[in-house]
């Protein structure tokens, strides 16, 4: 070896020594901290993931402010959420998922049931999530209705039960009634049926979402409205019904009815705002986002009713001790109104509307919940104007909208068959 190399080696070695010493100092610090603070809730970090709709940074900031602990949020699309909840139980503490996802994920045992006696506002939760009925006279819509997968027989229970057992799978947080979004300025005529999605008038200007379990329900609403198929249960189709539904849509796709399919919220907003699409399946805040750009967009109520969905918070099976307590505290805080008010101002509904009322102005409550004409400008949570004085919410009041639900997002018995058919439809 040459002398120069030797010096090189010595330099490297001394450098490594230095680095090791620094690392040792750093590690004693990081190891030491949690041991001192372990008793303090302020040091707890809860990891939550879910779809973009309710994974809001504002919520995390407010949690830190009100409760003191840290909430880490990850937003994913519905498929990725299902995947993560089913396959990576250690990667989250709180799963913000939809009820139909719950039906798929619960059997994996990755979530734990929640004791409703620890939920302060349990009695005030809307009937839809408890006995399934909005009002005592309501009939329960088709599909995976939230109450049907909302309870299990006890801690560790794997079977859903049809009564309020005191052990909830998800604590409901957010829900809405979905319908088609339209660009009234580009359509220029009233739209009142789901069948308009396949109306040749909108050839090349229609879109549907590319998430199979939700898309199939929109398709079913359309086919039923066209009078082509009458389903036994849209939320649980037979193979023949699935085949017929896809045959109708494949034909439409080949004829060039669709401009594009969308998978994420942003895609649907861009398609609508750019005028690529004038009628499509859409979610409420996407309408809000289009409107806040100053582009007219209507969440069109339709005669056949709405396709509804609900989401809730589920606890990871690995949560225990102080972290579990923190999670309960978080859930109680979630239902106590601030988040509800925030979500309601985006066009969603809160599971405990009466607590949210305290966090909304009278005008906002009237517009969003009671279906009354706005008395002043209505703004989004970020401050963009969405409606002027005198405007009325599309679809009217809470009971008008949630009372007209035709079906819930669902997972059917023939789900795997449907998924394969969906893949064929996309590739057709």
């Amino acid at each position: 070896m040459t002398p120069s190399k030797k010096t090189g080696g010595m330099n490297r070695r001394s450098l490594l020594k230095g680095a090791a010493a620094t690392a040792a100092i750093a590690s004693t610090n990081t190891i030491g901290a949690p041991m001192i603070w372990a008793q303090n809730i302020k040091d707890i970090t809860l990891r939550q993931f879910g779809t973009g709709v309710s994974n809001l940074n504002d919520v995390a900031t407010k949690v830190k402010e009100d409760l003191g602990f840290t909430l880490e949020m990850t937003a994913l699309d519905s498929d990725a959420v299902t995947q993560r909840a089913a396959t990576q139980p250690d990667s989250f503490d709180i799963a913000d998922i939809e009820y139909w996802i719950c039906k798929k994920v619960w059997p994996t045992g990755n979530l734990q049931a929640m004791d409703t006696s620890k939920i302060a506002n349990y009695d005030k939760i809307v009937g839809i999530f408890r006995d399934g009925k909005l009002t005592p006279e309501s009939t329960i819509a088709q599909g995976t209705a939230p109450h049907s997968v909302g309870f299990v027989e006890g801690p560790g229970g794997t079977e859903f039960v049809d009564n309020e057992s005191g052990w909830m799978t998800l604590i409901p947080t957010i829900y809405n009634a979905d319908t088609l979004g339209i660009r009234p300025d580009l359509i220029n005529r009233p739209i009142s049926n789901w069948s308009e999605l396949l109306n040749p008038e909108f050839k090349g200007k229609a879109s549907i979402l590319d998430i199979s379990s939700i898309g199939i329900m929109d398709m079913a609403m359309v086919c039923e409205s066209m009078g082509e198929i009458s389903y036994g249960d849209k939320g649980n189709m037979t193979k023949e019904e699935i085949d017929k539904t896809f045959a109708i849509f494949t034909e439409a796709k080949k004829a060039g009815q669709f401009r594009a399919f969308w998978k994420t919220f942003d895609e649907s907003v861009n398609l609508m705002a750019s005028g690529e699409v004038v009628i499509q399946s859409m979610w409420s805040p996407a309408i809000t986002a289009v409107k806040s750009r100053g582009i007219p967009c209507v969440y069109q109520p339709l005669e056949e009713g709405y396709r509804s969905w609900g989401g809730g918070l589920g606890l990871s099976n690995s949560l225990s001790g102080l972290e579990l307590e923190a999670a309960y505290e978080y859930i109680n805080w979630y239902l106590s109104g601030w988040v509800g008010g925030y979500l309601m101002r985006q066009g969603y509904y809160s599971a405990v509307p009466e607590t949210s009322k305290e966090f909304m102005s009278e005008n906002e409550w009237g517009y969003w919940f009671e279906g009354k004409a706005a008395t002043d400008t209505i703004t989004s949570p970020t401050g963009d104007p969405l409606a002027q004085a005198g405007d009325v919410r599309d679809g009217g009041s809470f009971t008008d909208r949630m009372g007209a639900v035709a079906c819930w997002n669902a997972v059917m018995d023939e789900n795997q068959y449907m998924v394969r058919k969906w893949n064929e439809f996309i590739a057709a």
Partner: protein
Amino acid sequence: MRLNRHVAGWLMATPLSLVLALFLLLPIGMIVIVSFWGATEFSIYPAFQFDNYEFLFGSPVTYSVFINTFKYAVVTWFFTLTIGFTVAYFLAFHVRSLTWQIALFLVCTIPFWTSNIIRMISWIPFLGRNGLANSTLISWGVIDEPVEWLLFSDFSVILTFVHLYTLFMVVPIFNTMMRIDKSLIEAAYDNGATGFQTLTNIIIPLTKPGIMIGSIFVVTLVMGDFITVRFMSGSQSANVGRLISNDIALLQYPSAAATAVVLLATVLIVIAVLLRFVDIRKEL
């Protein structure tokens, strides 16, 4: 001494072999194994069954999707090769000073300073119904109505592929062209060859390795892609990559693994065929 050198050789090869075994062979082995497993809606279970392959080969969708994938690969290859060869030829033979060659070559790489996805998505507002392309054409009076097939069509998919991957053709071709002995071209000229004869008899044969390396890049990139196809076709067309990504999204890992194995085999066959034409190792 001789033994020492022998041992040293093995030792020197070990790190790379380990890395390859761990990060290439092992994962591929896993994929092959999982492709024989079974899946329920939310879990996968070990098994040795051919269900996934049976379904794959039994479905007409698979064939149409593979044909579509090949179509994208072939058309993209043709355009990237034509454009890439022309650009490289210009850089290597028309630009005389080395400084300018380097400067212009760097200009070619500028688009690569931004992310792949951004370069792809920026086409969407450009090609859209009310986009720049359509409004320009309308204002020129070329068309009266916006052209619909510009966006969310095979056209937009291939356009994006060509845009994204032409550089992968330019670089290796330029590289081999630069190593062609200039005296060969002078000799051809002295012997009375026309420009076209020089091109077909000297330049193209000598650039073959570069063309082949570029082709392998482009073909494998296009065949393995899924995100470009999803965004630029508005989710309306499918290639094999999308088939796999759909399966993964729906937790059907074994089925995705089976499709991946078939795709891998197909790509390997394509590359093997390409390599029959040129012995890259000899030419490098």
